[in-house]
């Protein structure tokens, strides 16, 4: 090999790299990205989110490494594929290769020179990226980012480039080169980045359920080319504390280096294969006679072309020529393009890729509490829409550009552009043919969805949702994009510049989607949550927004088509004339002519901007709520409030018009020792024609931006009452969302959901904390003293005292209208139904839910469900029955006659346990998927049913840790019910599930002891639900069944009737007398409630030895976490939960130990059988981290 020639091959390509438009586009993207990310839009989830708390630095090596794993795939991959994959093809198209290879330049020198040039160019870009990141992170001032900037360390920026960037670069360059050389097809080159993006983005990076085998997880870490899965699974998922991430270097391990090694090996192999391919093509391919025959090549030399006939004169052929028709031209171009398209292998490679991707995502989707989701055609169509859209957009980009480029690269442009075929017809024909690409992807996705539904074997397939979502809604996106790409190509006339601009547009849109800045007005691909499906009724809240958005996009497509036709250069433009054409007058005239096409999209965009601004997440709404907050916070926060003595309300709902009317009264009584001079009520922002009364007379309260202040004639002394009445009408929801966000309460044809948490059908007593708070005016949550729970504490939500209620609901006759209590009247008149609900036992908060349902009666329970969702109703009904029965027995007899559970559309994804009237989003319970390990339906039903006791009968205090007595107790109740109904395995699987969830979501530095949790931090939720449920169960286990339940019964009985509301400390104090060993009880409480105990067990040195009778297993167990708990270690053999048909083979032998933080103990377990495994905590009785690693094979 001659290094001089190698250097020449390198040098020419290296210089060319810096002249490529793509190169500059990527540089610009990196600059913009660095600027955007320097304000902390992407950071490690760790740290103390309180004001002044230590935050995760974006400048740490960890943060830069994480960023690099995303950027390398999302940005670099496409550009590398383009540069490397088309590099040799370019030489071939320009026929330079013929000349190059007629010199002494060898294939090795040629290929390696090119490879080194491309990698060198991107290394320069990566170093540029380092410089730009450092500049924006350390030089450009940004006061709001002070907390997240650490000191400058060159290592933090350079090491990720070396460990993440370089191996990926080698890998992608090598593979792109061999793909480009082997296929000689520009489109095929894009298979690699598209496939990698799909597989990584929608699978490798995101799919890691708690039950995944550790070996499989490690395999996935090894094959992820970006290295993100390794980083996340090994170092980020389980929070190690912000100090660790900020100050430590990334500790690369053997698994990581294995991952890097195989990337390098594959990349180098790619280059070697390219070299071989080039060498072979130079010698000429040797083909068999059969291949020769099929290609029409003369099978043997020496056969001459037959003697040509001279024929009649040309004039005798009677040829005529005229302008071909538009449609026939389109058809001709489309036909020829299709021929070319269908012989492209790329399309056939994408089909199985899509099948696997869509199938995988469909079957592995999770919902509430990480429970698997039951797919329906509509949910499936929406769920994979984002993937489908991305894939189609990328494919359309590549196919469109290459299709437009084809005439130039083949040389046919010189002939074809001189034909009378209209430019519009020519472009339209190509677009029609390329649209087949979109159709193929959609068809493959449809097949995959059908297979997924088939495998699921529960919900039947229906084509209608796919036709609506993928057909009607997504096709305008594809048309728009094709027109846009065509216009770009027509404007720049260059394949690389076209890719650069189009990819930049995609990346920008994607960035705005991920940062949630995008709205309907800019969401041309319908990404994010724009498409929210409910089987009960589709797109009801944002139908107008969708229509306007699609009109905008279609109009935009027409505009870009006109622009493309105008700009497409069939005739080479003259430079001088072009300058004249840019004169303002000429330009203005041209703009006017095109302007007509822009009118419709512009008009639609304007209306959308207006609608979003005035919608329920728009600027107008934000201002109104902010005014409410600003005007009332200081005066009315924690102001004394009266109790509700009675509620009488009549609500009329008109689902078709999204309208409702409310008229009612509150009877309010002063239950406080002090007098009440004024009573504040919060009204709704969308209340129209509002009228108030006080004690039956018309009254005008002081209106403080929707906080209405009533001043009775005389201040209310203790026991005095006043009756406040209201009447109003309005719409719910008011306007459209920003980009398809959740709508928690609504009046829609698919269902009605109204709650007393919001002023949706009733005023809310007092000032509503949190309303009007944004990140700009967000204050840190009030810090309560640890003894705040002493004395009288207010209710965390709902009313302080119980009250009776009468709720009359009127709506269309086909609806069932559910309220609290029992239905005392149900009449239909004039097409309207009126149901009157009266509480048979007082309640503390009201709700209304309506729908067109079927019913399933249980024992004192009723399930109201949509006829389309019968799948889990039996299980829900039996669970609700079991919950009512056993919770009544364990905690307190259920005080109400009826317990209802009603389904509502998945415009919101929650379930709420209002007294007697539980509401479930269709995605919870009704559409959960159950298997032997996870009975998700049982889980969610049991949890929500438990709220009748924990949350309604007993309402926790307004203050820190109160919510444990609601959510934590609900999870605890579910654990008990699992054990009772499903057996030990059911409880254990559920316990492991929530333990794993807690481990994934906790943030070590942000987590406070249970006593201090107030629900204001992001990480509080998992502590309340998962840790809370576990701790209560461990306490129950520690105290013993009878003692624990006795304590709980007394606790709930005492506090349910009191004006005082319990905090966790009250609970702990209440349970203590029932503990067998108060000292041990106090120690448990200290560790788990006051501190943050979290054991983590490791087994080392486990081995078995045969003895005379059986086996001895010796091992050492170490608690690498915190907390001191008794724990059992079992040596086992066989499958513990064998299928019923199988012979039970499980055997075990146990020992118990107590390990504190950092302690270890060696022990020996005697077995009469040959064990194959050692399991710490086999009965899942101790909450711990990384449970899977506490099981070892022998």
């Amino acid at each position, binding site marked *: 090999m001659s290094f001089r020639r190698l250097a020449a091959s390198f040098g020419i390509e290296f210089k060319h790299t810096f002249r490529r438009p793509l190169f500059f586009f990527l540089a610009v993207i990196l600059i913009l990205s660095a600027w955007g990310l320097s304000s902390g839009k992407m950071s490690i989830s760790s740290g103390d989110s309180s004001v002044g708390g230590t935050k995760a630095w974006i400048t740490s090596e960890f943060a830069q490494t994480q960023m690099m794993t995303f950027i390398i795939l999302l940005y670099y991959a496409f550009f590398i594929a383009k540069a490397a994959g088309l590099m040799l093809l370019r030489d071939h198209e320009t026929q330079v290769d013929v000349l190059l290879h007629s010199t002494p330049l060898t294939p090795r020198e040629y290929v390696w020179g090119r490879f080194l040039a491309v990698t060198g160019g991107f290394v320069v870009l990566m170093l540029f990226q380092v410089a730009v990141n450092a500049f924006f992170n350390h030089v450009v001032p940004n006061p709001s980012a002070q907390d997240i900037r650490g000191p400058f360390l060159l290592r933090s920026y350079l090491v990720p480039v070396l460990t993440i960037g370089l191996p990926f670069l080698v890998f992608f360059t090598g593979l792109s080169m061999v793909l480009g050389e082997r296929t000689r097809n520009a489109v095929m080159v894009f298979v690699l980045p598209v496939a990698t993006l799909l597989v990584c983005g929608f699978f490798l990076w995101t799919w890691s359920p708690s039950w995944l085998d550790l070996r499989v997880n490690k395999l996935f870490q090894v094959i992820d080319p970006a290295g993100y899965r390794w980083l996340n699974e090994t170092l980020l998922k389980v929070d190690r504390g912000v100090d660790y991430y900020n100050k430590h270097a990334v500790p690369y391990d053997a698994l990581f280096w294995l991952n890097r090694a195989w990337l390098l090996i594959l990349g180098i192999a790619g280059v070697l294969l390219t070299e071989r391919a080039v060498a072979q093509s130079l010698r000429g391919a040797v083909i068999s006679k059969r291949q020769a025959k099929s*290609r*029409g*090549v003369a099978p043997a030399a020496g056969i001459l*072309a*037959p003697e*040509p*006939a001279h*024929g009649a*004169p*040309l*004039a005798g*052929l*009677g*040829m*005529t*020529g*005229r*302008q*071909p028709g538009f449609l*026939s*031209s389109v058809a*001709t*171009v489309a036909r*020829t393009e299709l*021929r*070319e398209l269908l*012989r492209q292998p790329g399309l056939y490679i994408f089909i199985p890729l899509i099948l696997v991707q869509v199938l995988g995502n469909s079957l592995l989707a999770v919902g509430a509490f990480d429970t698997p989701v039951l797919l329906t055609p509509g949910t499936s169509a929406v769920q994979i829409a984002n993937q489908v859209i991305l894939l189609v957009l990328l494919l359309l980009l590549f196919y469109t550009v290459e299709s437009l480029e*084809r005439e130039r690269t*083949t*040389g*046919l442009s*010189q*002939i*074809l*552009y*001189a*034909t*009378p*075929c*209209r430019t519009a017809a020519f472009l339209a024909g190509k677009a029609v043919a390329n649209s087949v690409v979109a159709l193929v992807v959609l068809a493959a996705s449809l097949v995959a969805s059908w297979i997924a539904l088939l495998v699921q074997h529960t919900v039947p397939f229906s084509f209608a949702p796919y036709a609506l979502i993928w057909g009607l809604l997504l096709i305008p996106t594809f048309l728009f994009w094709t027109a846009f790409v065509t216009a770009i190509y027509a404007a720049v006339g260059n394949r690389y510049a076209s890719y650069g601009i189009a990819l930049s547009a995609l990346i920008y849109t994607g960035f705005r989607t991920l940062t949630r800045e995008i709205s309907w007005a800019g969401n041309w691909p319908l990404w994010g949550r724009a498409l929210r499906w409910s089987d009960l009724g589709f797109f009801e809240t944002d139908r107008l927004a969708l229509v306007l958005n699609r009109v905008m996009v279609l109009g935009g497509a027409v505009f870009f088509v006109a622009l493309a036709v105008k700009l497409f250069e*069939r*005739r*080479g*433009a*003259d*430079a*001088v*004339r072009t300058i004249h054409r840019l004169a303002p007058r000429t330009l203005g005239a041209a703009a006017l002519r095109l302007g007509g096409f822009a009118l419709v999209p512009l008009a639609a965009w304007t209306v959308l901007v207006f609608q979003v601004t005035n919608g329920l997440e728009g600027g107008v709404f934000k201002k109104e709520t902010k005014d409410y907050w600003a005007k009332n916070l200081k005066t009315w926060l924690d102001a004394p409030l009266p109790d509700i003595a009675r509620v009488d309300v009549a609500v009329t709902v008109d689902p078709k018009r999204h309208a409702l009317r409310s008229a009612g009264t509150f009877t309010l009584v002063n239950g406080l020792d002090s007098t009440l001079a004024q009573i504040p009520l919060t009204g709704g922002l969308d209340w129209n024609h509002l009228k108030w009364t006080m004690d039956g007379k018309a009254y005008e309260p002081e209106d403080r931006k929707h906080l209405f202040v009533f001043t009775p004639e005389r201040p209310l002394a203790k026991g005095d009452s006043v009756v406040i009445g209201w009447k109003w009408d309005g719409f719910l929801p008011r306007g459209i969302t920003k980009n398809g966000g959740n709508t928690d309460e609504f009046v829609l044809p698919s269902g009605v959901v109204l709650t007393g948490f919001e002023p949706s059908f009733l005023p809310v007593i007092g000032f509503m904390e949190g309303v009007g708070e944004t990140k700009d005016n967000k204050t840190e949550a009030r810090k309560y003293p640890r003894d705040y729970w002493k004395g009288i504490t207010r209710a965390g939500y709902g009313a302080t005292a119980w009250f009776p209620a009468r709720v009359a609901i009127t709506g269309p006759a086909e609806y069932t209208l559910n309220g609290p209590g029992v239905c005392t009247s149900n009449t239909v008149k004039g097409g309207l139904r009126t149901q009157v609900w009266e509480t048979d036992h007082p309640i503390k908060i009201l709700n209304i839910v309506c729908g067109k349902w079927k019913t399933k009666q249980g024992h004192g329970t009723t399930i109201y469900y949509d006829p389309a969702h019968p799948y889990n109703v039996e299980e829900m009904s039996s669970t609700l029955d079991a919950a009512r029965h056993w919770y009544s027995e364990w905690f307190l007899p259920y005080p109400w006659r009826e317990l209802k559970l009603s389904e509502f559309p998945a415009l919101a994804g929650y379930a709420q346990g209002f007294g007697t009237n539980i509401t479930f989003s269709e995605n919870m319970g009704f559409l959960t998927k159950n298997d032997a390990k996870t009975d998700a339906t049982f889980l969610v039903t049991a949890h929500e049913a438990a709220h009748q006791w924990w949350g309604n009968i007993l309402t926790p205090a307004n203050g820190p840790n109160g919510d444990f007595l609601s959510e934590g107790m609900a999870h605890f109740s579910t654990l008990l019910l699992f054990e009772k109904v499903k057996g030990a395995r059911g409880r254990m699987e559920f316990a492991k599930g929530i333990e794993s969830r807690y481990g994934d979501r906790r943030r070590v530095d942000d987590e406070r002891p249970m006593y201090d949790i107030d629900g204001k931090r992001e990480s509080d939720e998992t502590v309340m639900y998962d840790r809370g449920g576990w701790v209560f169960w461990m306490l129950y286990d520690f105290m013993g069944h009878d003692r624990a339940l006795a304590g709980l019964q007394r606790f709930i009985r005492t506090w349910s009737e009191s004006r005082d509301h319990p905090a966790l400390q009250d609970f702990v104090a209440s349970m203590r007398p029932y503990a067998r060993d108060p000292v041990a009880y106090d120690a448990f409480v200290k560790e788990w409630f006051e501190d943050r105990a979290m054991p983590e067990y490791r087994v080392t040195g486990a081995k078995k030895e045969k003895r005379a009778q059986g086996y001895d297993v010796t091992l050492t167990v170490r608690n690498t976490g915190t907390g001191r708990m008794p724990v059992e270690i079992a040596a086992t053999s066989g499958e513990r939960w064998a299928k019923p048909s199988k012979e039970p083979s499980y055997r075990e032998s146990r020992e118990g130990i107590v390990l504190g933080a950092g302690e270890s103990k060696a022990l020996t377990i005697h077995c009469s059988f040959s064990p194959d495994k050692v399991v710490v905590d086999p009965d899942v009785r101790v909450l711990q981290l990384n449970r899977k690693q506490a099981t070892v094979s022998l």
Partner: protein
Amino acid sequence: MLETRGLVKVYPGPVTALNGIDLDVPSGMFGLLGANGAGKSTFMKILAGLLEPTSGTATLDGENILESPETLWPRLGYLPQEFGFYPHLNGETMLDHLLTLKGVHAPQGRKRLVAELLERVNLSFAAKRSLKGYSGGMRQRLGIAQALAGNPRLIIVDEPTAGLDPEERLRFYRLLSELAVDRIVLLSTHIVEDVAVLCPRFAVIRAGRLVTVTSPGEARASIAGHIYEGVVNVEDLPRLRGERIVTQAILVEGKDRARIYDPSGSPPDGFAPAPVTLEDAYLVLMRLGALPARGRRGVSQVPPAGGAEAALASASTEAGTTS
């Protein structure tokens, strides 16, 4: 009639490719001669509507074809100098595709027409073969087939015989001549012989300017009697070049067999008068910048009708004597 006035094309650089071309081309064959880079292809592309001129006008039968090239294209048959096809189509499909886009119709149907055209250019045997497997000459013939299709008023062929063997060249000459009877055929080439054979009139472009418009006969007549042929030693050739216009010098057995233009009537020793060829006239023109006064004409019209055919008839004879 095809008329151009003041046609200028300046590329960024600046590079002046055409520097004001005034030309009238009547019906029939018309040749455009010039060296490589003279501006012939630029001129052709402008006329074919594929390149925008910097300034100037061009009309076809009184209609401005530069303002709206789309009005020209239905009446145009164009064979560019460099072109290609979709490699994975076969010859038949490619030709059919182009004929459709050109709006070509025939009483026997387009499929039959395609077969006929392929037969005319001797490609019937390869009709079903992928274009990827076509030789350069076969591609050229297919290009010719699509250029001749339809009923074009103006046919522009740029270096049409590149890659063709002698038999195919003759076949092509015949086809072109058939068409030239009642339409304008503009033939651009740097092969003098093509012009000599086919074109009753031709123009010469040099460095973007029109140097002359004449006929083969006139051109030859302008130097008649002044062409001599002889043998010189290799080391004497440079001196000969310095003293006289050498129109040809071929090395044969170690000595240069040279042809010179000497209007003085006193050629060097060893040189004898030789029959004048159009190539001699072209080379003298390129050296002098104009043809000698005797027999030279300015911008003119009217080639003799049937001139092209008559020229073709004599070309078969001349081809054997002048090549």
